[in-house]
């Protein structure tokens, strides 16, 4: 028996809950609350839009921007006028008692109800996991049509009070569309830039970083709404603009906070909106007129279908990836109406629009129909039509490399052909961004970090955190491929047993030391004073430690299994000479150190340079930044080939007495230091150069 939630989308259930609650309140004799428009527009809507805008998949959005804009602007206009006009015609038919509704009122009604609602679309589409193209098309349309709705709404509302509407008014109305939409975007961009700039200086007060994101976005929304510009577009623009810079500046914890807060707020808002819709249905004054309501419903559907068909025919002339009839059906079917229409209608003034109740009834009917009927049936239809679903693919480093390579290749080809296309301008924008904008808005070193590196670090961090969460060394996931660095390094020289055979208890000792020192990952629970909350350098060190643990674990694994050192490919004569030489071949992490014993492995004889690289290659294997042999930093776990004091020495487990004191610093996150030689300096951990 399928569960209720797999058949009925959440939005429907919430509306039903609202209906029940409303009915209950009414039954008790109280007046149920109605969804007031101010509450809706000021408090309930912004979190949802911000959540959508901040996490907007920008690449797909910009690739399909033309299509989305055409659907949003032309589609909504078509819907509004088609519906308004037809409803006017219906009203003129005698005998329905609707003669008093003028053309403008009908057009206003049409403009209110024609806009696809982002809240409803999100609520339904999130559950059906449709492929990204369709998702972004319908969702993008629902976001961008706000400008059209705002313009039409205010326009018709004002015109309804005029005696006469002249051509000039219409032209001005047309122009105001550009002002509203572009103005909204402009406001959003300004606030986004300010937010990004602010986040550049927050490295000492990490705690309130999320606040800036929310604050500036909300201010963008309010500022835009104040001037009757499109608040939704302002919100989205600010989220999109600020995101890359803010994410480069803020700490990982702030990023998580932002993510979870946005998701929480938008979930709460969505729930409240739907419940309120239900309650308002019960509470509101209704005026049911069969003709009006039924014809509204019918014409809404017809307008949507015709609009999508016509526009797709036009758009497909310009698209590379054409929209198939299946896609068109889903786009048409996904045009859900929601609470925005309801609230806009509620805002209408009773004096000028005394048919407001009838409008409200009709709108609620359409909303219910779209949310219930279309919302419930879209999932089986998607399965029936075998529409492509979302592919759950993890972004791999290969994909990233290939995508960037392809971008550069296509830009190059466009330059060679002299065609200033899509890629050319995107590349120019990227270069401008890198050269000027990033320097202003991103703090410190990260401003110069190329995207590939940033992506790689992000992935590494994710892996490191996953490893910590999975309990550390103890578990090795069985699904992990056993491919490791030695598999991809081609063997040139014959494999020799270069390492001396370690006696059993030496092995045990190694293992014990490693395990003891690397298991201390549980952070001591401490009471957080907001002034002593872990700041970024420690986080950096934490990350470094995690990565290092990963490598040591790998190394340990290898030492357990293959004491035979595989030969590696000699890079160049100078490099191999450097290895044989006395320079310590330090594996050096970027920042700070850990209090671990230095394990130096000594090759059996200096004449086999290839053996030395066991350390190097394994440790580099997980992709950490390594440095040249010449650098002097020595910290943490260092694998170092030592010139043997006498040939055949095989006991080299001397803790690094020759090492610099920096090795003896303790990482703040480790609670117990574990067995180690006495620190040479008793200082607490000092972060290295902030």
């Amino acid at each position, binding site marked *: 028996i399928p569960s209720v939630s797999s058949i009925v989308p959440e939005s429907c259930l919430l509306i039903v809950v609202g209906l029940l609650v409303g009915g209950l309140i009414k039954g008790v004799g109280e007046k149920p609350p109605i969804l007031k428009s101010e509450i809706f527009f000021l408090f309930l809507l912004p979190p949802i839009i911000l959540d959508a805008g901040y996490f907007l998949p920008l690449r797909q959005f910009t690739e399909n921007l033309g299509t989305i804009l055409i659907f949003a602007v032309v589609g909504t206009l078509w819907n509004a006028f088609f519906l308004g006009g037809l409803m006017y015609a219906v009203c003129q038919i005698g005998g329905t008692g609707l003669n008093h509704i003028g053309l403008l009122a009908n057009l206003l009604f049409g403009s209110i109800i024609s806009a696809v609602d982002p809240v409803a679309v999100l609520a339904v589409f999130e559950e059906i996991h449709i492929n990204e193209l369709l998702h972004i098309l319908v969702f993008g349309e629902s976001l961008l049509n706000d400008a059209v709705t705002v313009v039409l709404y205010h326009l018709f509302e004002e015109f309804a009070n005029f005696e006469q509407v002249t051509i000039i008014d219409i032209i001005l109305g047309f122009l105001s569309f550009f002002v509203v939409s572009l103005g909204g975007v402009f406001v959003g961009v300004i606030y986004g830039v300010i937010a990004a700039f602010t986040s550049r200086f927050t490295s000492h007060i990490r705690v309130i970083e999320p606040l800036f994101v929310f604050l500036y976005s909300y201010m963008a929304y309010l500022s835009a709404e104040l001037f009757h510009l499109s608040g939704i577009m302002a919100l989205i623009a600010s989220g999109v603009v600020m995101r890359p810079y803010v994410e480069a500046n803020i700490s990982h914890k702030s990023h998580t906070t932002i993510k979870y807060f946005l998701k929480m707020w938008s979930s709460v808002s969505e729930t409240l909106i739907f419940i309120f819709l239900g309650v308002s249905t019960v509470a509101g004054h209704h005026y049911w007129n069969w003709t009006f309501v039924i014809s509204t419903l019918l014409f809404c559907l017809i307008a949507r279908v015709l609009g999508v068909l016509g526009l797709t025919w036009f758009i497909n002339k310009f698209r590379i990836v054409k929209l198939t009839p299946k896609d068109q059906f889903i786009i048409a079917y996904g045009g859900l109406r929601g609470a925005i229409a309801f609230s806009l209608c509620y805002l209408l003034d009773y004096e000028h629009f005394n048919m407001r109740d009838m409008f409200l009834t009709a709108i609620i009917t359409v909303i219910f129909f779209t949310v219930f009927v279309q919302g419930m049936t879209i999932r089986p239809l998607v399965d029936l039509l075998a529409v492509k679903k979302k592919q759950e693919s993890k972004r791999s*480093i290969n994909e990233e*490399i290939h995508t960037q390579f392809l971008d550069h290749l296509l830009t190059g080809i466009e330059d*060679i052909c*002299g065609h200033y296309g899509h890629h050319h301008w995107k590349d120019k924008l990227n270069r401008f961004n890198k050269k000027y904008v990033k320097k202003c808005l991103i703090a410190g070193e990260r401003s110069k970090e190329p995207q*590939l590196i940033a992506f790689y670090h992000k992935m590494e961090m994710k892996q490191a955190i996953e490893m910590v969460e999975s309990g550390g060394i103890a578990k090795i996931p069985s699904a992990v*491929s056993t491919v490791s*660095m030695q598999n991809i390094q081609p063997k040139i020289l014959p494999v020799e047993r270069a390492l001396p055979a370690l006696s059993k208890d030496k092995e045990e000792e190694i293992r014990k030391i490693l395990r003891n020192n690397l298991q201390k990952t549980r952070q001591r629970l401490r009471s957080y004073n907001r002034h002593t909350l872990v700041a970024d350098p420690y986080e950096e060190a934490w990350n470094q430690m995690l990565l290092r643990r990963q490598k040591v674990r790998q190394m340990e694994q290898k030492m357990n299994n293959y004491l035979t050192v595989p030969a590696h490919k000699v890079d160049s004569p100078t490099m191999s000479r450097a290895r044989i030489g006395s320079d310590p071949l330090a594996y050096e992490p970027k920042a700070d150190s850990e209090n671990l014993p230095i394990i130096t492995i000594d090759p059996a004889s200096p004449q086999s340079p290839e053996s030395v690289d066991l350390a190097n290659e394994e440790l*580099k*294997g997980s992709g*950490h930044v390594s440095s040249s042999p010449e650098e002097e930093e020595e910290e943490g776990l260092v694998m170092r080939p030592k010139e043997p004091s006498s040939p055949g020495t095989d006991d080299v487990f001397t803790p690094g007495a020759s090492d610099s004191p920096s090795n003896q610093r303790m990482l703040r996150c480790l609670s117990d230091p574990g067995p180690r030689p006495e620190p040479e300096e008793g200082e607490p951990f000092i972060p290295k150069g902030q």
Partner: protein
Amino acid sequence: TGKAQSSGRCLGLLRALLSSPVTSDQIEHLHRRFKQLSNDKPTLRKEHFDSVPDLEFNPIRCKIVQAFFDRRNLRQEEDGLADEINFEDFLTIMSYFRPIEPDMDEEQLQRFRTNKLKFLFHMYDSDHDGIITLEEYRKVVEELLSGNPHLEKGAARSIADGAMLEAASICVGQMEPNQVYEGITFDDFLKIWRGIDIETKMHVRFLNMEPIAHCC
């Protein structure tokens, strides 16, 4: 005139190569561009590509220019790099960037995709041995990151190593410790690209509609 003759010949050649109608407008435009680049000479050499203005910002310009002269891309029998290419070769390279036609069937689409991927593969595989080795991959990543002079030295290496590891685990899966993964063969390359629709991504629009802009 020679231009009309070669135009006609190219049309026929392209039709045969691409088995789809290409308008003579597009060929005209490309021919004009070719003459611009080659200073009205009949063949292009590598040096001529230096005159393309924005190409110098491109981190992989060497590979791109080399791809034009790669005999494997020019469908010639020999191997290695040609010294100069004529207009027909130029068109041959351009044909790799055609967008898909709406009326292609499954087999054509597959061949289309394989051709494009082969072009990409040849760009990665600089020593023409049919395998992308770790060294070649490292070079690719280094070139991609070459626009950032103040990078840590090992960063490109680590990324390439990580990517190769990933490729190996996708293509071969579980490996014994003493097995060696030589490098990415073309089949492995196809496997890696399986999820990505290259036929929709790797195209230049001018081959589809009227040329909009002429670069000076």
